[in-house]
C-alpha cells in the first residue's frame, strides 16, 4: 500500500483511452520515476494522478484515502504539489511573488517555507526581485519546483523537470530533488532522460502504450538487459 497510489487507471481526454489499467505509486521519502517512449502516456498518467482528467476506471488513493473525485485544487490542499512541464512559472512576476502565489492557499506565515526554498535553491534568493521570465531555463525550473514546495506538500509531482536544460543543470536539479526526498517528501516524476532518472530512483515504472511494462526498483531496471536494450539505449 503506497503513500500515493493510482491504481488500475483507465481513461483519456474524452476520446479513446490513453491509459489502460495503469498503476503508479510512491512512498514517503522515496523517488518514483515514470519512463517510457514518446506517447506512452507518461504525462497522462501523471495528470490522472493529479485529477486533471477523468478516469473511467481505477482510483487514486493517498494515505489510503480515496481522492479520485477531488479536483486538482483540492488535492493541493490535501498535500499534493504539481510542477507542470510547460509554462510552470508566472513569467511577469518576480521570483518571490511566484513563491508567494504558490502558497496562495496558506493562511499562516510563509516566510519560513520561503527561506527553506531559498536554502535549497540559493540562486533564487539572489534573483528574488527579478521577473521569472528573465531567468535561464534551469533557474526557471527551480522557481517552478520552489513554487510547488510552498504549500509544504507531502507529495511532489514533476512532469519532465529537466526538459530543455543542459546536462550540468540536469545533474544539479536531480541533486536538489534527492535532497527534497530526504526531507521526507514523496517524489513522483516523469522523465525523458531515463538513465539518469532511474539512477536516482527508488522505484521505476516503464510505461508502453498506457500500460505498465516493467515495474521494479530503479537499480533493478538499470540492470535488466531487456529494459536496457529497449529503453535505455543498450
Amino acid at each position, binding site marked *: 500500500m503506497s503513500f500515493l497510489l493510482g491504481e488500475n487507471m483507465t481513461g483519456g481526454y474524452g476520446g479513446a483511452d490513453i491509459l489502460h489499467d495503469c498503476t503508479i505509486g510512491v512512498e514517503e521519502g522515496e523517488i518514483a520515476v515514470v519512463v517510457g517512449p514518446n506517447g506512452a502516456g507518461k504525462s497522462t498518467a501523471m495528470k490522472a494522478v493529479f485529477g486533471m482528467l477523468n478516469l473511467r476506471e481505477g482510483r487514486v488513493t493517498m494515505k489510503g484515502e480515496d481522492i479520485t473525485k477531488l479536483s*486538482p485544487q483540492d488535492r*493541493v490542499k490535501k498535500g499534493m504539489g504539481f510542477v507542470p512541464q510547460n509554462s*510552470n512559472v*508566472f513569467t511577469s*512576476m518576480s521570483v518571490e511573488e511566484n513563491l508567494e502565489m504558490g502558497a496562495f492557499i496558506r493562511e499562516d506565515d510563509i516566510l519560513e517555507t520561503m527561506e527553506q526554498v531559498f536554502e535549497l535553491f540559493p540562486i533564487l534568493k539572489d534573483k528574488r526581485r527579478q521577473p521569472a521570465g528573465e531567468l535561464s531555463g534551469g533557474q526557471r525550473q527551480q522557481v517552478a519546483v520552489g513554487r510547488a514546495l510552498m504549500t509544504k506538500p507531502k507529495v511532489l509531482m514533476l512532469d519532465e523537470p529537466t526538459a530543455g536544460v543542459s546536462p550540468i543543470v540536469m545533474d544539479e536539479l536531480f541533486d536538489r530533488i534527492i535532497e527534497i526526498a530526504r526531507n521526507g517528501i514523496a517524489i513522483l516524476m516523469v522523465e525523458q532522460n531515463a538513465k539518469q532518472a532511474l539512477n536516482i530512483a527508488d522505484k521505476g515504472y516503464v510505461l508502453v502504450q498506457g500500460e505498465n511494462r516493467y515495474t521494479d526498483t530503479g537499480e533493478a531496471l538499470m540492470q535488466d538487459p531487456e529494459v536496457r536494450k529497449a529503453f535505455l539505449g543498450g
Partner: protein
Amino acid sequence: MMENILNALVLLANFLVVPGLAYGSQLALGALGVTLIYGILRFSNFAHGETMAFGTMAAILATWWFQSLGISLGPLPTALLALPVGILAAMVLVLTTDRLVYRFYRKQKSSPVIFLIASLGVMFFYNGLVRFVIGPNDQIFTDGSRFIVTAREFKKYTGLNEGLAIKTTQGITVVAAVVIVAALFWFLNKTRSGKSMRAYSDNEDLALLSGINPDRVVMIAWLLTAALATIAGTLYGLDKSFKPFTYLQILLPIFASAIVGGLGSPIGAIAGGFVIAFSEVTVTFAFKKFVTYLVPEAWAPDTLLQLLSTDYKFAVSFAILVVVLLVKPTGLFSGKSL
C-alpha cells in the same frame, strides 16, 4: 526677444500641455479599465465607453440631488462628492451584467470573439439605458470655482501677452488620475488579491493550480473597472460636458491607448493614454501664433499651420493605432499580462 520666447512657451502650455495632460489622464483611466478586463477576461470590452457613461450618469444624478439639498464642496465640484454613488451604481451594473451575460460564456470557455459580440449587445443595452434615464442631450453639472488660475490673473502677474488658464476640472483630473493610478499599482503589486490578479492574468492554469479562485479575481476586475470607468467618465464630463454620444466616440481613443501601450499592461495603458492625447492635441493645434512669436515679423505665416482640423481628431488615434499594429502589434510595453 526673451519675452517672445516666453510668450510662445506659455501659449504652448496653455493650449497644448494643460489640455493634453487632462485629456491624457482621462484616456489613461479609461484604457486601464479596458486593459484590466482584457488581462483577466481576455476580450476587448466594447461596452466600456457606455459603462463610463452609465457611471457618470449616476454621478450626475447624485450631484443634482446633493445640489438640491444644498450640499457642496465649496470651490470643488459637487460631482466629486457624488463619485462614490456613481461608482457604486456602475459596480452593481457590471456585476449584474457579468452574472447574467459573461459568466455563462466563461463556463462554456467560449472564444474571445463571442465575448466581444456579447459586449456589443451589452453596449447597445447600456446605451439605451443611459438615454432612457437621462436623455440624449448635453448635461452640465460642473459647479464650484471654474479656474485655479485664470488667463487674466496670469497675465497680470507675469506681464506677458499670453495667458495661462488652468481650469479647476483640469487640475482635479490630473490629481485624481495620479492618486488613482498610484492606488491601483499599490493594489496590484503589494496586496495578496492584487498579486493573485496578476498571476491569473499571467498564467491562468498555474493560477488555478495554486488555488487562486477565478470567480473572485473576475469579480475584483469588474469592480476595479467600474470604479475606473466612472472616475474617467465623470472627469471627462466635468472637463468637457456630459453627452451620451461622446462616450461612444471616446471608445476609439481609449482602445487605441490600450493597444498602443500593449493590451493587458497597466503601465502601457497609462503611457498609451498620454501618447494618444498629446498626439491628438498637437496635430490639431494651430501653430500660427506660436511661430509668429518666434520668427522675425516678415516670416510670420499667413496660414493656420494646423496639421489636421479638429474634426479629424479620431483619425489621429487611428493613425497611431495603425502604426503600432504594423510595427509592434504587442504595443510599447508588450502587453497580455497585468
